[in-house]
């Protein structure tokens, strides 16, 4: 087993990984940019080293700096987490050169499977059904537009690199094509340093269902079953669950086999996720493979009882997966919501700032993978994911009721979060019946928010609280225009005091 692991990431996933290291008695090494000195992952790691200014291109995306830290700290492995360099083959190559184990697939497997176009070619060769469209990156917009006209709209523009809904646009007609192409490619450039796009036929109301696989370095590949991630906002997953409300044992078997086939064909080793679109007739189409840990991996952990990060580490250090796992039996139902610092009432604009007070829910069936804490200031340089709230229950109903209960308790003041969006989703009849698809949420958001019964009592209390807040603020005669960030004159005074003597 490894002695010391560098975690080339930040936020909740860095915390998640270092927790696994600690439980395995492996030392964890964190890295941080100038704005992350006080981040939770730095507080909790065994070691922590600065790697430059806030912009990720000057810090978290700098392979040279990461390798330098790994060498100085004497790390024998690097875990990339997700995002940043997790799908950049240059990192495993740099690791190989430095004689450090990369906790992930080989650069070759990453390229064979990770790039969407290459992945789709391999899928076709492995009898894994794919969505009609172009396999290769398209250089000229005109070319792409012509192809779109040929296939017929709607079409989907996607970045060759990366994922997470960035550099992605749906085009429904010729008129919108050029602006969509422009936005998608520049967004891709900013996010991944690679502007190339490809496109594919856009399925109506498909479900997003993905298979979690594990592949060891001894040729064993197993499926841990599916996750349904159909609730998405602009192609960004926001709610994930397992099992899927619609999948049958037969379909689960078929999709699992297809995923295992594809991973084998690509010589894949590591935890990985094979994403499919599933249409109304339960036909499934390969979408792409994520050659890394997923944001939503806890959903699978809660139903299988397995620790995917520990298993990634075990696989990377050459351990074998037990045969028994080819017949993993999940228990109950799990669901995750992604809590972001963003304002649902204002077009989901990110809302960075200081978390003034916080209450994290817990109790039966609740797990919180958190990356923040009270008093911390959410920087505006990175993805605004704060924490992931995961619920487990014996049934989908119990899971939803626990998640709703936890969301009632979940408190963050000082910044706006999207918790309210989930309180709304979990009350929608469609969602409760499991009748969802990848456009469901976007459609919901175009409709006015109807509430079954609005309690007048709560409205009264809210009016009183608003007045009390105002009265208190006046009492501390802070300027009428101040924002929550400086809500309390006393704390501010305290902070200023401290600033005078502490960085």
């Amino acid at each position, binding site marked *: 087993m490894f002695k010391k692991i560098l975690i080339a990431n930040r936020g909740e996933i860095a915390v998640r990984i270092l927790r696994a290291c600690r439980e395995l008695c492996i030392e964890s090494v964190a890295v941080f940019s100038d704005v992350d000195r006080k981040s939770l992952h730095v507080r909790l790691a065994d070691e922590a080293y600065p790697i430059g200014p806030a912009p990720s291109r000057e810090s978290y995306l700098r392979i040279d700096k990461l390798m330098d830290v790994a060498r100085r700290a004497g790390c024998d492995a690097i875990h990339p987490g997700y995002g940043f360099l997790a799908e950049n083959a240059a990192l495993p190559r740099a690791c190989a050169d430095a004689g450090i184990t990369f906790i992930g697939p080989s650069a070759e497997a990453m390229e064979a499977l990770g790039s969407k176009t290459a992945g789709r070619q391999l899928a076709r060769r492995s009898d894994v059904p794919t969505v009609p469209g172009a396999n290769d990156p398209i250089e000229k917009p005109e070319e792409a537009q012509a192809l779109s006209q040929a296939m017929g709209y709607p079409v989907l523009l996607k970045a060759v690199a990366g994922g997470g809904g*960035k550099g992605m646009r749906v085009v429904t007609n010729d008129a919108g094509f050029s602006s969509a192409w422009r*936005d998608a490619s*520049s*967004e891709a450039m*900013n996010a991944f340093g690679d502007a190339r796009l490809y496109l594919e036929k856009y399925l109506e109301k498909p479900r997003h269902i993905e298979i979690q696989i594990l592949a060891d370095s001894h040729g064993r590949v197993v499926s841990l079953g599916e996750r349904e991630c159909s609730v998405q906002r602009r192609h960004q997953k926001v709610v994930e669950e397992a099992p899927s409300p619609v999948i049958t044992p037969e379909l689960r078997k078929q999709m699992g086999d297809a995923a295992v086939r594809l991973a084998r064909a690509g010589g894949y080793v590591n935890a990985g996720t094979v994403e499919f679109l599933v249409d109304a007739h339960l036909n499934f189409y390969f979408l792409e493979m994520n050659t890394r840990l997923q944001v939503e991996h806890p959903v699978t952990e809660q139903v299988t009882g397995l620790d995917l990060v520990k298993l990634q580490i075990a696989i990377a250090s050459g351990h074998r997966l037990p045969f028994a796992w080819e017949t993993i039996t999940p228990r109950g139902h799990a669901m995750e919501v992604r809590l972001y610092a963003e*304002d649902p*009432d204002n*077009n989901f*604009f*990110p*809302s*960075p700032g200081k978390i*003034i*007070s916080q*209450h994290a829910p817990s109790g039966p069936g609740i797990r919180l993978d958190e990356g923040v804490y009270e008093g911390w200031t959410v920087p*505006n340089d*990175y*993805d*605004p994911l704060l924490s992931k709230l995961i619920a487990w229950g014996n049934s989908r109903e119990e899971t939803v009721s626990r998640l*709703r209960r936890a*969301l*009632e308790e979940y*408190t*963050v*003041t*000082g*910044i*706006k979060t999207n*918790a*309210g969006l989930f*309180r709304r989703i979990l*009350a929608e009849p469609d969602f409760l019946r499991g009748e969802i698809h990848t456009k469901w949420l976007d459609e919901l958001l175009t409709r006015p*928010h*109807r*509430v079954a019964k*609005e*309690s007048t*009592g*709560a*409205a*009264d*209390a*809210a*009016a*009183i*609280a*608003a*007045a*009390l*807040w*105002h*009265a208190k603020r006046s009492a501390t005669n802070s300027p*009428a*225009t*101040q*924002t*929550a960030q400086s*809500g*309390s004159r006393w*704390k501010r005074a305290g902070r200023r005091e401290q600033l005078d003597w502490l960085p």
Partner: protein
Amino acid sequence: MKFEVQISGANKNKKQTRVVELERTGDTWKIKLDSEPVDADVSEIAENIFSILIAGKSYELRVTALSGGVLTVQSGLEEFAAEVTDPRAWRGRSHAAEAEGLQQIVAPMPGKVIRVLVQAGEKVETGQGLLVVEAMKMQNEIRSPKTGTVERLLAEEGQPVVAGDVLCIIA
């Protein structure tokens, strides 16, 4: 102290105006809502978090101030938007923008203007894109709230902005 609170629930367009009167009596508060006395027991739990018992019903209110003086008040599964008018500003209440018919387009959060899609004097439709602001790697198009003309354009491409910065004005 007397406050006028404009409050709305799930439906942000359905605003109600409530008048809240706070009077300290000893170590508690006498509270009137729309001049009706309310049996309310108030405690401050933490900064911005209030626990209020109204005739036995327990409410916890979590207050977050957004730029522009709007308060978000969350309680259990519900969320309210509230604007409080200070007694001192009692008559000074201004709906400036509406009054003048002008719409100020402000940056809703810190970021960078990466594209300006209109020019001063240009006619714009409701919903037409005016600028694109990037923050946290997400690009967000800011659209016109009304049909009119670009009265003034204060932002330029590449310019960093903070929440509340006026980017342009639509007449």
